[in-house]
C-alpha cells in the first residue's frame, strides 16, 4: 500500500524546499505520495516545474494562509 509523507519546509527559502524534497524522494518507494509544505512562493512554482522535468507526477497545489501544500507521487 502506498505511503504518504509530509515534508515541512515552511520558513525555508528557494531552493531549500526543492532540495528537501529531492533528498526525501530518494527515500520513499515508487508510488508513494509526498506533500511539501512551503511558505516560499517561488518554490510553489519551481517544484511543479522540476516534477515535470524529471518525470514525477504532480498531484496539485493549494495555498492556505501563506503556506503552499504541494502534492506529488514518486513515479520512477
Amino acid at each position, binding site marked *: 500500500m502506498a505511503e504518504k509523507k509530509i515534508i515541512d519546509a515552511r*520558513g*525555508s*527559502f*528557494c*531552493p*531549500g524546499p*526543492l*532540495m528537501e524534497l*529531492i*533528498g526525501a524522494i*530518494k527515500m520513499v518507494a515508487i508510488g508513494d505520495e509526498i506533500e511539501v509544505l512551503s511558505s516560499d512562493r517561488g518554490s510553489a512554482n*519551481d517544484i511543479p516545474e*522540476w516534477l515535470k*522535468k*524529471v*518525470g514525477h507526477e504532480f498531484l496539485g497545489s493549494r495555498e492556505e494562509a501563506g503556506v503552499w501544500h504541494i502534492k506529488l507521487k514518486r513515479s520512477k
Partner: protein
Amino acid sequence: MESNKISIVVLSDKREQLQMAAMMASVGAVSGNEVLVFLSMNSLRYFVKGADEQAPCEGPVGELMAQKNVPPFKILFEQAVTLGEAKIHPCSMAMDVLAIEPEGLEDYIGEPMGLTLFLDESKGGQVWSF
C-alpha cells in the same frame, strides 16, 4: 529527460554571487543536467576545510539573506554533488597562489583543474560566471 551541460565559474567572494552560483549548481544538477563548477580567485578560500568566514554582502538582498532562513551556499554546493552528481573542481592556479593542498579542501571538492581541461569540458554547453 533532456540533459544539458552547465559550467559555472565562481570567482567572487561576495554572498549574493556565491549564493546564485550555488543555486544554479544545485538546481541544475538535480534537474538532470551535467554540472561542472570551477572555483577560482576569491571564492576558493570559503571551501577550505574548517573555514567559517562569512561572505560579505554586496547590497541589501545579501543582508536580508543573512538574516533569513536561506540555505547556505556551501550546503547547496555540497547538495549539488551529493544529490545531483555535480562536479566541483578548484582552479589549479588559485590553489598554487593560496598554497592550498587538495586534501585541505572540503571532501566534496574534486581534484584541481587547469583552464585547458575546464575549457575542453565546458565546450558545447552553457557557461555562467559569478
